């Protein structure tokens, strides 16, 4: 099937962005409206496509649109072409839907910022790039969107780049992403060299004939790409710093959409991972590590946004774990991705709302007892909270529970390890999220005298409410009759694998709920029953200290990459100057020196000149003599 309207999905926000950037200050008054409309109309197009898709039967739902031949060199042929299938439509709706809500939210949130127009231009740019990422019909098209969102993310994290730390955070994000991009580009190269194509359909076709080794290589490289974009271990360090961006950005990019691109990539490449078990296992391992990693960091953070960021990292860990579990897990990874998109975006917007009311304070130790002052925020945030810790019937319950279940179903030692990790993660999640909610909304007031907490304007809370609705309902809808799984089946499930059941689903659910209750209980004991201090206590265990420092991730990067890198660079600068250029200058000096030395043969004494002639004559005779011997 082809469709001519796919391009509008991307074109609308792209044009919006271009207009806003080029129009300059002239667009200050209406820029945000245009951007919101652009994003909104893209959502409408998405809905239209969705309705069209529903009208068709399962196998024919995917549509494509070829725009033009992009690169065609020898056998390397890549079209600028879009493809919308069951998987991408989920993303399209999430991106444009949540995106539009966040646009609306930002109108109010950013109303005092002089550069609001620019902010909206970036937001639109992000929407366009993200849509390209999920709509591209080949890895190379995806790559364009992939780096495009990286650029938008960089621009938005550094939106207030007059603060040096924010500028640094933006740079850090970009560079960590670039390392991931390196993986993606290598994956594409390997794919072209071994399979002769880089389009999804082509690779899918060829993957059956390809050697496992090649597919494993591609898979691992794709995983590297995913770790960069989705802040997974070991490229996770940038996400916490990325909270430097305005909060709507954190909600949209660093919670709901962009950071989940890694999950998309892996699910999209299911045909590669399914044929490359080693790579698949590595995906699962990375997911498992990160879900704990993020959760542990989340326990120690006092900065509300950083705590949420750590939680995002952890939740994406779940998704990656799910995606790494093969056909059984793809659908649940995507489901968790979607539900997470709702509740995490909602919570971030809630956090933004809190900050909005608290003069941009982010330290939870300066909050407390805010529920009375911000009832709507508290309510929507609370729903998100319930969703994330997996309380039924909120969305998170359905999705996370399924991932844990699938993890156990992986079977054997693998199943036990992944399953227990996921369970443990659920408990920790419950703990730190409870801690977060308590420190913010409950307990004693610890805010500054100047602060006047107040509820946010309607433009801000309406999106929050809508997202809260999603947090409540989405999980149920997706899992009702396995609707999402069936919907995605044509894309991600080829053959049905035999599932090993280590534990029955019911047991898993009960276990999970028990552990969640445990986590909540501990948090309540620790933070509601005892007074929360305004200053973070210093005399804490070494583990807390390490967790506060993000499990030493920055220290590690600095010690292993940054400082040696700087040293090497400095050394190379010297080498260039003294060794390579030195050699050049040395040759010059040697030439000049030998000139000066030879010059002394010219003594000025005519007798020595005569001597030269005499010796020369003798030399001539002698040489001729020798030659003729």
């Amino acid at each position, binding site marked *: 099937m082809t469709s001519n309207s796919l391009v509008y999905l991307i074109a609308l926000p792209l044009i919006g962005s271009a207009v806003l950037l080029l129009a300059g200050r002239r667009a200050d008054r209406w820029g945000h409206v245009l951007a919101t409309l652009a994003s909104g109309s893209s959502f409408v197009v998405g809905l239209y496509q969705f309705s069209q898709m529903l009208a068709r039967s399962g196998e024919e739902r995917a549509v494509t649109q070829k725009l033009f031949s992009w*690169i065609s060199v020898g056998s390397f042929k890549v079209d600028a072409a879009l493809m919308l299938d069951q998987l991408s439509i989920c993303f399209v709706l999430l991106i444009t839907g949540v995106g539009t809500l966040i646009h609306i939210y930002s109108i109010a949130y950013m109303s005092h910022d002089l550069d609001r127009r620019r902010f909206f231009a970036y937001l639109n740019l992000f929407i366009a790039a993200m849509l390209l990422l999920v709509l591209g019909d080949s890895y190379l098209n995806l790559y364009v969107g992939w780096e495009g969102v990286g650029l938008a993310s960089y621009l938005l994290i550094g939106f207030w780049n007059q603060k040096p730390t924010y*500028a640094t955070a*933006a740079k850090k994000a970009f560079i960590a992403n670039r390392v991931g991009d390196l993986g993606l580009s290598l994956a594409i190269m390997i794919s072209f060299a071994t399979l002769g194509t880089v389009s999804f359909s082509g690779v899918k076709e060829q993957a059956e004939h390809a050697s496992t080794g090649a597919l494993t290589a591609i898979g691992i490289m794709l995983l590297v790409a995913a770790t960069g974009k989705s802040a997974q271990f070991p490229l996770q360090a940038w996400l916490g710093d990325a909270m430097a961006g305005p909060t709507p950005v954190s909600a949209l990019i660093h919670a709901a959409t962009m950071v989940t691109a890694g999950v998309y990539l892996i699910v999209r490449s299911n045909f590669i991972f399914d044929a490359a078990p080693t790579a698949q296992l590595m995906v699962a391992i990375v997911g498992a590590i990160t879900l704990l990693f993020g959760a542990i960091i989340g326990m120690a953070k006092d900065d509300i946004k950083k705590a949420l960021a750590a939680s995002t990292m952890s939740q994406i860990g779940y998704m990656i774990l799910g995606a790494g579990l093969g056909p059984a897990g793809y659908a649940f990874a995507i489901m968790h991705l979607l539900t997470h998109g709702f509740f995490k975006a909602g919570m971030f917007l809630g956090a933004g709302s809190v900050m909005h009311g608290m003069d941009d304070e982010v330290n939870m130790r300066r909050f407390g007892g805010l529920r009375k002052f911000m009832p709507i925020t508290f309510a929507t945030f609370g729903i998100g909270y319930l969703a994330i810790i997996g309380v039924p019937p909120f969305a998170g319950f359905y999705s996370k529970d399924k991932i844990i279940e699938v993890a156990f179903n992986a079977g054997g030692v693998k199943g036990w390890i992944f399953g227990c990790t996921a369970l443990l993660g659920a408990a920790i999640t419950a703990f730190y999220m409870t801690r977060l909610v308590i420190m913010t909304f409950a307990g004693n007031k610890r805010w500054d005298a100047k602060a006047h907490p107040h509820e946010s304007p309607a433009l801000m809370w309406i999106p929050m409410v809508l997202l809260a609705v999603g947090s409540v309902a989405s999980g149920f809808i997706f899992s009702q009759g396995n609707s999402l799984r069936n919907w995605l089946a044509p894309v991600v499930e080829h053959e049905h694998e035999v599932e090993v059941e280590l534990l029955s689903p019911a047991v898993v659910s009960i276990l999970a709920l028990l552990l969640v209750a445990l986590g909540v209980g501990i948090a309540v004991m620790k933070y509601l029953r005892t007074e929360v201090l305004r200053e973070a206590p210093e005399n804490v265990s070494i583990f807390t200290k390490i967790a506060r420092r993000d499990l030493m991730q920055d220290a590690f990067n600095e010690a292993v990459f940054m400082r040696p890198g700087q040293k090497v660079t400095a050394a190379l600068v010297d080498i260039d100057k003294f060794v390579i250029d030195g050699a050049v200058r040395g040759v010059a000096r040697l030439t000049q020196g030998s000139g000066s030395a030879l010059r002394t043969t010219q003594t000025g004494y005519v007798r020595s000149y005569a001597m030269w002639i005499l010796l020369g004559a003798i030399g001539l005779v002698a040489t001729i003599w020798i030659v003729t011997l």
Partner: protein
Amino acid sequence: MNWLIILGLIPLAGAFVLSALPAASELLAKRIALVTTLAVAGVAIAMATQFQRDNVDPQFVQSYSWIPTFGINFAVGIDGIALVLILLSSLLAPVVVLAGWNEAAGGRWSVKTFYILILILQTMIIGVFSASDVFLFYVFFEAMLIPVYFLIGGYGTGARAAAAVKFLLYSLFGGLLMLAAIIGLYVLSGEQGGHTFDIAALSNLQMSSTTENLLFLGFFIAFAIKAPVWPFHTWLPDAADSAAPGTSVLLLGVLDKVGTFGMIKYCLVLFPNASKTFTPLIITLAVISIIYGAMLAIGQKDFKRLIAFTSISHFGFITLGIFAMTTQGQSGATLYMFNHGFSTAALFLVAGWMAARRGSSTISDFGGLQRVTPIMAWSFFFAGMSSLALPGLSSFVSEFLVLVGTYTRYPVAAIIAAFGIVLAALYILIPIQRALHGPTTPGNESLSDLNLREKIAIAPVLAVILVLGFYPSPLLNVINPAAQHSISQAGFSDPLPTIETHSTAKVGE
């Protein structure tokens, strides 16, 4: 009349007109220079429309006997690769003139002389890309140095004289080695059916492998110095540092392409076997250039030197693509030459404007420019993104083609080279952070943003970068046949996907 000859004569005519002007009429001189370069650009585009892109034979061919005693002809004719480079030089020239409107003011000589030199240089550049006679090529190759030498030495800043001399000596050294090789070719051709310098005839010469290797080295070292490839690069940072921005654009953007162009058109075509022999070495040098240039760029404290080192890295990519001996690599390298011209032009011009306003090109002297001069900052940012090959901008297409093309034959080299894209992010983002972001530092508060002339100059450059990023076909369609041709002339064909060999093996069973 031949298109190429007309194209080459226009700037020369402009130079003549300029030389008749009184030195005082500076504005008129600038206008004449601008009109001339615009005319060249127009004619070049018109010529490009006449180019038959699927024809791999040289086009717009014209030959006049020049020095019959030595079998030398004034012979011109271009293929797709040369066409693209001529387009590059023709399109950049008006930008340089417009962007560097006041550049000549601080020079040692009059404004008029500056533009005369620029126009003469343009003629020579067109000549060097058009020549289909090795001797003629060499003449342009060497004679080109003189105007550049005076441009750097006369209109640069800082240690300009020293930089100019370094540039000239380096280039002359390479040129003389090439001369020795050309003499070798000449003598060989004389032994095998009459003296000639026609490339097509020379490519059929029989020679022993030792001779071929030596002659190849003569050419290659000259080109490697010009390009420049590590370790022959040390003249470039000095030259770029000292030259006026417009000159640097011509130097790095256009002139250095003669080196990589020569590798394709002379090294591969004339010495296919030697090219094969030396490929591992050259690939190694190219990879070193990529990483080394990038690392040094990171370590620079000055914008101009930084850009120079990024170019060394980029030239590494181009060289890599050329010697990967695949269609993708070759086409990518050629496209890279074009794209690098534009992105470096943008970087240099904006950096030049920044330096002119601030009176310094040291990165740490800037800070927070994005708040003060948003348009200038944006232009720089945009150019920087192009330099780090952001997808959607033109350099991405070329860089990726080079990497893909290299990977199919030399995977290890491609993987190492790919790390260049991470380093690229560092060398672009670090200066952006220092100069454009952060609080506005003292000395930068009252800098003025781009004026209309500067906007007009930079806008087309950025537009080209953007448009070609999404739609490179117009150039690729012209380059591909030529690239394929030169690969096959060198006796190579693209490696097949390994899976194809698997499946055919299966069929064989």
